């Protein structure tokens, strides 16, 4: 650095005089800034990539893979991109985002013919995507709902709970909804997997529809990362059901006030893809077919994994693998068992025992089952 200063353009006297000051400034401002801990989920993928073993399996990944373990871009997405490339200018979206994308997103979440949409009661903005036990501890959940102070805000996963894959049944959702009414809690739904869970977007929105029928005013965060494979595009929608149109306008205006000093207005590309697909009946049909295809593959892999484990004569119950839904499966494995899976079998997953079923293929399911079986066998 001293060399570059000397070599720099003709020094004014001032600059030489301040040379000493510059040297002092080499003591960094950031001495007290600690290195951050590595993100646990992303670290898994890094370790996987670094592993030279031909048998390695990545079931830490939070993104869909096809049966060859490759990332997928949906045909409907490619077609939408072909249509929009070069055609649109890139002028700033309004702070609240793409109107078309929001309209289509609300129809998906609240229902095609939703009266709330017709009455303009939903404040919605385009957002930057969405953000142990082996079964549901339903009584524990109900206790916590009852014991929370009245009017608490609850974050609920609309479908395909992450990381457990354990969803309440329809009857259980109805009970939860009822208790919410009694306690006047605010239900906020995180819906990152609509369509991706069961293969049917309407079915995956059932919990939301139940709460709406029961008269709750909900909040909802939707993401198109998984169900349209738009991960890196950061496309989603935040909506809040209000009393009436006027209130929806006020709430939306405040959401925009929060967005403006965060990022001014949201990115357009993903929004255009979404609105192009959902706004065109043919493309939408294609999408529904493709998202069902992804969900079916996952469901198929769950069955295969369970069957393989049972075939190996595992005395444990693996019902939870097929009872759970969505991309993730909570295996119930301990961190030590997970470490063994990684170190001995080159199988990568997060240490909480969460398996991404998206990383399971017909090619590796037997290997995976065998490895899990081995790790459990030791404990017994």
């Amino acid at each position, binding site marked *: 650095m001293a060399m570059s200063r000397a070599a720099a353009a003709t020094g004014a006297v001032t600059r030489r005089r301040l040379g000493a000051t510059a040297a002092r400034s080499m003591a960094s401002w950031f001495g007290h800034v600690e290195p951050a801990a590595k993100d646990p989920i992303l670290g898994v993928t890094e370790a996987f990539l670094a592993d030279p073993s031909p048998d390695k399996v990545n079931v830490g990944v939070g*993104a869909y893979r096809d049966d060859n373990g490759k990332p997928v871009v949906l045909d409907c997405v490619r077609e939408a991109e072909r249509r929009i490339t*070069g055609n649109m200018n890139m002028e700033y979206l309004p702070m609240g985002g793409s109107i078309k994308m929001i309209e289509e997103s609300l129809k998906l979440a609240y229902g095609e013919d939703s009266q709330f949409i017709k009455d303009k009661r939903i404040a919605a903005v385009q957002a930057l995507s969405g953000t142990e036990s082996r079964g549901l501890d339903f009584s524990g959940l109900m206790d916590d709902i009852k014991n929370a102070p009245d009017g608490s805000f609850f974050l609920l996963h609309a479908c395909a709970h992450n990381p457990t894959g354990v969803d309440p049944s329809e009857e259980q959702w109805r009970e939860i909804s009822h208790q919410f009414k009694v306690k006047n809690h605010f239900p906020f739904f995180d819906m990152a997997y609509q369509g991706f869970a069961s293969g049917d977007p309407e079915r995956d929105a059932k919990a939301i529809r139940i709460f709406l029928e029961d008269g709750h005013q909900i909040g909802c965060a939707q993401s198109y990362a998984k169900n349209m494979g738009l991960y890196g595009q950061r496309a989603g929608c935040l909506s809040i059901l209000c*009393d009436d149109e006027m209130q929806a306008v*006020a709430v939306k205006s405040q959401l925009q006030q929060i967005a403006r000093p965060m990022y001014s207005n949201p990115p357009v590309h993903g929004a255009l893809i979404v609105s192009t697909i959902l706004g065109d009946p043919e493309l939408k049909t294609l999408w529904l077919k493709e998202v069902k295809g992804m969900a079916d593959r996952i469901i198929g892999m769950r069955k295969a994994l369970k069957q393989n484990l049972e075939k190996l004569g595992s005395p444990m119950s693996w019902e939870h693998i097929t009872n759970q839904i969505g991309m993730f499966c909570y295996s119930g494995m301990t961190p030590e068992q997970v470490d063994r899976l990684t170190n001995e079998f080159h199988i990568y997953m997060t240490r909480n025992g969460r398996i991404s079923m998206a990383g399971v293929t017909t090619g590796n399911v037997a290997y995976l089952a065998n490895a899990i079986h081995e790790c459990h066998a030791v404990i017994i």
Partner: protein
Amino acid sequence: MASSAAAFAVLRGGKSEARAGCRVGITRKNFGRVMMALAVDVSRFEGVPMAPPDPILGVSEAFKADKNDLKLNLGVGAYRTEELQPYVLNVVKKAETLMLEKGENKEYLPIEGLAAFNKATAELLFGADNPVLKQGRVATLQSLSGTGSLRLAAAFIQRYFPEAKVLISSPTWGNHKNIFNDARVPWSEYRYYDPKTVGLDFEGMIADIQAAPDGSFVLLHGCAHNPTGIDPTPEQWEKIADVIQEKKHMPFFDVAYQGFASGSLDEDASSVRLFVERGLEVFVAQSYSKNLGLYAERIGAINVVCSTPEVANRVKSQLKRLARPMYSNPPIHGARIVANVVGDPTMFGEWKQEMEEMAGRIKNVRQKLYDSLSAKDKSGKDWSFILRQIGMFSYTGLNKTQSDNMTDKWHIYMTKDGRISLAGLSLAKCEYLADAIIDSFHNGLGTAK
């Protein structure tokens, strides 16, 4: 009814357990018996007021509603062609076509963004041969354009320098204050605009930076100051650097117009490079909204020049940690466009040419406006400040009342601080605009609204 009043006090006050809009707040004391009778359906959001309209967007909306043929929108902060149309750069269309052909996947980017993009951006800003890059001393994170970069930096400042203040120019881009307010970072202003000269109040600027507590963050516009268009001269930049060094302040650049101001990427980065050359640690928030016309893609970066590579790694890791709960990872599309354009020598050359053309059009329009004003204004007023200003915007020196006259009488839409966007001006409209400015300046007085 006392209990209703109590309920409504609960709704408004928000201090008790029951949140605003609690439907059954009344029933808490009389559980069961009164529940049915007094179920008042008041929303949780009853207390949410309507936010004020955005001062800049409101201009465009009013413009759209105006039916007059002569109307002109000079509020817009986006480049327009001579035909007053939005402009997608040819090199961007090429890049997108190429990307479509490549058919790359849409996997999540890492939290810090696309590596090729970060490398290209740091090289553009600091110069590809800059020692700080070779030494690995720069932490760069792709972020959500200029706003996102500023917000990340603000969050970092709030966490690691909670006692520090950010000094911002008076005036500055309106959203700067919102960003620091929402990030809970205190700020104060340094003098910048001198209405008497319609130029830089340099003495005031230096004095205010001098007077601030040591170790403040000084927010500087790298080039093409928004909203005034008034930039320090190279000599003035040296003196600004002197006082910042002396006070051990942290220079914090907002670079939204690199290449767009003078037409030259290197020239427009000279202020930033001057500070870096002195061995200082520097924050730089950067955006491709204007210079690559990628407004809606939200593509930019926060860069922090640190004293050593080890420091840069730590700073980068903490910026990532701040970004993760905000948006997890940044959007890919704009980053790929930039990486493709900058990474290909032919496209890079084409970009530089298109940028020169855009900057050139603005300079021509400035000249024509000045010529028209000088020719038409018989008062002898010196309008040459228009030529000294640079970039998309120009501070006309018109006050609010005069600006209102521009709109009400002449159907020219601008912001109330007297700022016009030359990006929205065509050569064909210069004479009309000159007439309007002259009229508003000399006659547009009256009771301020």
